[in-house]
């Protein structure tokens, strides 16, 4: 879990300009179930004050799957057209935002990724150029049952 202190620079109409909000961001991976893994991004207001975020784009979230050496394997937003809007979003103390997507165990070109070690990161785009990134989450893709039987 990554605990972040951010200065929200573009809050609209609220007095959040001087606040240094404490947000936590973490990513979870559920699966694989069949040939998919569910990825979930959690953003939580860890402070005791209401925080205002500017979310950059609709949708503002993204997920990255990389090899342990950092090479990008798959990105959820890749090839998607994002509405270029900025949204003001308030988070009460303890409130969470969650975003969930499915990774079909493919790379950027749609090819099945080989079994092995990967890392997943969740990203929340804020007012450009700010982004909130989770710590990388290690992820192991086991060989398929068919491959195991073949051995």
């Amino acid at each position: 879990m990554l605990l972040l202190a951010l200065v929200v620079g573009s809050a609209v109409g609220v007095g959040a300009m001087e606040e240094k909000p404490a947000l936590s961001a973490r990513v979870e991976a559920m699966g694989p179930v069949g040939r998919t893994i569910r990825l979930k991004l959690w953003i939580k207001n860890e402070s005791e004050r209401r925080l205002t975020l500017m979310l950059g784009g609709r949708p503002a979230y993204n997920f990255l799957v990389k090899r342990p050496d950092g090479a990008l394997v798959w990105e959820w937003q890749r090839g998607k057209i994002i509405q270029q809007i900025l949204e003001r979003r308030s988070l009460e103390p303890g409130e969470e935002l969650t975003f969930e997507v499915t990774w079909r165990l493919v790379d950027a070109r749609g090819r099945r990724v080989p079994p092995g070690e990967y890392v997943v990161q969740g990203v929340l785009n804020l007012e450009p150029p700010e982004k909130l990134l989770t710590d990388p989450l290690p992820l192991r893709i086991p060989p398929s049952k068919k491959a195991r039987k073949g051995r």
Partner: protein
Amino acid sequence: MARVLRRYAPVMSILLGVVLASGFGAWSATLTSRMPQVPLSEETLDDQLARLAERIPGFGGIFLDENGRIAVYLVEGEVTTLSVREIGATIARTLGWDEPRLRAGAIRILPGQYSFRQLKEWNDQLFPHVFEIEGVTLTDIDEARNRLRIGVESEEAAEVVIETLDSLGVPREAVIVEEVEPILPMATLRDKVRPLVGGLQINFPGYLCTLGFNAVRSSVAGFVTASHCTNVQGGVEGTPYWQPREDTDTFIGTEIADPLYTRRLGCPRGRVCRYSDSAFAQLAFGVNASLGYLAQTASLGSLTITGSFQITAEATRRVRGEVLNKVGRTTGWSQGPITQTCVNVGVTGTRIVLLCQDFVQATVDAGDSGSPVFKINGSGVTLYGLLWGGNSSGTSFVYSPIGNIQRSDELGSLRTCATGSC
């Protein structure tokens, strides 16, 4: 170098005089040490020239001509006993202008029609009235043309100005009424800017976007922004807009048109379609907007407004490879080639498909939705459309072409160009 300095010395002196007379407090302390002979009073340059007219009968104005010579208007028929050398000396003394050519009488005398005093009298009379007319941007005693000059943004404003001249008894032929670009302060795209122009930050409840362009739709003045920059994308909910953000004096308009996304002919099953991501907002009463102008920033990537682009045409065709521009509140002015034309685009996270949209390889980021897209063509720009989307890396944007926006099943016919220009 010395010759160059001497050549420009009169111009510099006049400029310094203008600056001092204009009351630029912070600068004047520095400048007075260089120009001790210039009286530091609250007298404007026009006051000084009017005082000069008291000393030189028939004096109608002074300026440097295209060759750098000192030129002075004297009203034809006005009898003056002063020699040219005395006229020069009087000018030098009154304006505190230590210029050898004045002392030597090296002046070009031009026949004028109006004395400066007369022009100033009319100017003082007109000033409070003409600035009540919407679209008037400047008034001036034009020393180089021996006339009054009134700058307007539109033909409509010019007509009202001329009516006002008649009602105040100011001779029409003594006044030049001409269209000028709106005067924009040094501000950024995210500041409060009036009159409204395209490319500025706008705010509606909970969100920030960009104002596309001002327009007249079915005789209603307003502006166009993205359909997803409304409370609900598709359908009219009366979304309120502020510029740059919600405050007591920043309300600029209300959404009045945003066609529904429908399962029209050619729309894929399970999806809803439109030909543009555009909506129209009616301008709020009393808000000044410049039809046909977009904010121009200092350079590509800059957010600082230094001028304006004038819309002189609307695109009737789009060709892959054409270099287009956009101005938006987040990434400012960006530029690049059209990479794809007439693409049907599914909007991420929705059932919406936008039909026949164009892609441009240029910088974009969140907040740029609604940006005007245009092509620079000499002195003006051709309006191409309205930006609504981009890729995740911010290197390519998508826009709705202006022809799509003006389809009868979209916003319909719009007037977008600067008055009289197209």
